């Protein structure tokens, strides 16, 4: 049986393997080599400078800033996203009617191009005629309606709120799919014992969902550190430094915007740090979050 099938292993794997090797694995390995050079990308003058790009990054104030902003995004954005998603899962979990509709609506931002969402949020936060400030004015909160949501003081948190709105849809749907697998008998038994919704959530849903939640945390770490498209587009022009993420900094270093920079080697070294940080955090959270799966 298996020998009969073994004949197809190579021809079936080859197309995917070749494309993957040429356009993914090879560039990924080459990135380490590029990061050891000083290079503008256009000339042949690629000079080997050893680990100087990596040591420079350790002293780079902008990199520190962007790194802290990314950590804040993953940490605060993660707490908000996961609390809201679990809250919605608890609310929507048991009900059958209309569940599919809620699920689809809450998820829908995830199928819309980030540029369109960025345009929408840019308008919501627009200081002069934006939806938020005009709503606040209509409610009589004239003081609050003067706030510049996209100003340097608030822009980081304003955008974080919008990003949470997008991702809550994804994680709610993820947790709901996990919650659907919990046998209904558990809840029925708990109800007979007189447990309320809150109690059932913390004693049944949360522990039995833990595996999905911990996997979700791993997903969020990857998603959070790779944020680029929404942040890059949301201000409509050059993104202010308050909302730079690590990938945005890499793109700006490599290709510049407005003024060309073309520091290909240095940009790649920063991207390499990103890989190391993400891999480290993912490995750590896999190790500490994953308990033995609960059998049921």
């Amino acid at each position: 049986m298996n020998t009969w099938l073994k004949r197809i292993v190579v021809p079936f794997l080859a197309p995917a393997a070749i494309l993957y090797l040429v356009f993914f694995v090879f560039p990924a390995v080459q990135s380490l080599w590029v990061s050891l050079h000083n290079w503008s990308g256009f000339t042949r003058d690629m000079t080997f400078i050893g680990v100087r790009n990596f040591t420079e990054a350790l002293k780079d104030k902008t990199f520190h800033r962007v790194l802290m902003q990314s950590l804040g995004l993953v940490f605060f954005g993660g707490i908000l996203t996961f609390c809201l998603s679990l809250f919605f899962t608890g609310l929507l979990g048991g009900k059958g009617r209309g569940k599919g509709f809620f699920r689809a609506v809450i998820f829908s931002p995830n199928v819309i191009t980030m540029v369109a969402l960025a345009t929408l949020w840019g308008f919501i936060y627009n200081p002069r005629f934006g939806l938020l400030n005009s709503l606040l004015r209509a409610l009589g909160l004239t003081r609050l309606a003067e706030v510049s949501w996209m100003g340097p003081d608030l822009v980081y948190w304003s955008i974080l709120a919008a990003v949470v709105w997008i991702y809550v849809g994804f994680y709610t749907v993820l947790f709901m799919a996990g919650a659907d697998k919990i046998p209904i008998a558990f809840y029925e038994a708990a109800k007979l014992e007189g447990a309320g919704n809150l109690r059932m959530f913390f004693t049944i849903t949360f522990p039995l969902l833990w595996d999905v939640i911990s996997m979700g945390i791993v997903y969020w770490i990857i998603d959070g550190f790779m944020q680029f498209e929404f942040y890059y587009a949301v201000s409509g022009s050059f993104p202010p430094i308050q909302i730079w993420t690590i990938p945005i900094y890499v793109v700006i270093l490599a290709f510049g915007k407005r003024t060309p920079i073309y520091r290909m080697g240095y940009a790649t070294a920063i991207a390499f740090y990103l890989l190391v940080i993400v891999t480290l955090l993912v490995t750590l959270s896999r190790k500490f979050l994953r308990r033995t799966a609960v059998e049921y």
Partner: protein
Amino acid sequence: MERNLETRESAGGLLARRLAAAVPSGVANLFLALWIAFTLFTIAWVLISSFKTNRELFESVWSLPRGLNVQSYVKAWRISKMGNYFLNSLLLITFSTAGIVFVAAPAAYVLARVAFRGRQLVTNIFVSGMSIPQVLLLVPVFMLLRRFLLLDNLIGVGLVYVAVNLPFTIFMLISFFITLPVELEEASAIDGASPVRTFLTVMLPLAGPGIITAFIINFIWNWKEYFWPLVLISSDSKKTVSLGLYGLQGSMQYSADWVGLFAGCVIVMLPTLLLFAVMSKRIISGMTIGALKG
């Protein structure tokens, strides 16, 4: 125990307890309802505003359009060239998505069902690509495509799309192929069919739903994304629709044509939203499959 307590309480106490239980869940449900309403509102608002004139929009952002002003759409489609970009995206994404599924399906089949030496290693190499930041590939891919003369070329973007989406697609399709019963191949072998024929006529149709899901999810993802075209495409005539919208949004600070921008948003949003409206269940289960099976 609790029941006994309840029966001993006075009617007023009982009412208070009931209220205390109902109010938080009422507030919670209200919050959920507001969240859902807000999400629906945002999409509807962009759609409605795109039929206004700029003047109407600035008079009141909440009002309904006086008439069905399609001028913004005509302008976005022709003058802002969203029509061109739409066609570019349609071609690029249809072909590259078909390409992804075309190479991922046989690979996933072999990885799911044939026990060969190195299977685990090959699977790991493919799947680990899911946690590699794509921005790491930026400079090397740029160099590579320049050497192949595929820079500023939609074929180049398409090849990158195939490569970067293989990890997820293979991972997802393995989970579909693995569920099919072993007897199918045994019966085929006894009938004297070749493995290739078995794959094409027996396994592929059975994995059909999974393959369609993989196609649609990749289509939506690549339709949405503009990172790779942003760094790989420089000529205006080769832009994809998401990148075109990004450009349109960037020119807003000079044109102040908000309704035109909203019309552009609707043009980009519509295909993926329609796909989602028709097959939301399938798309949701496909996109969340990784975390559930992982």
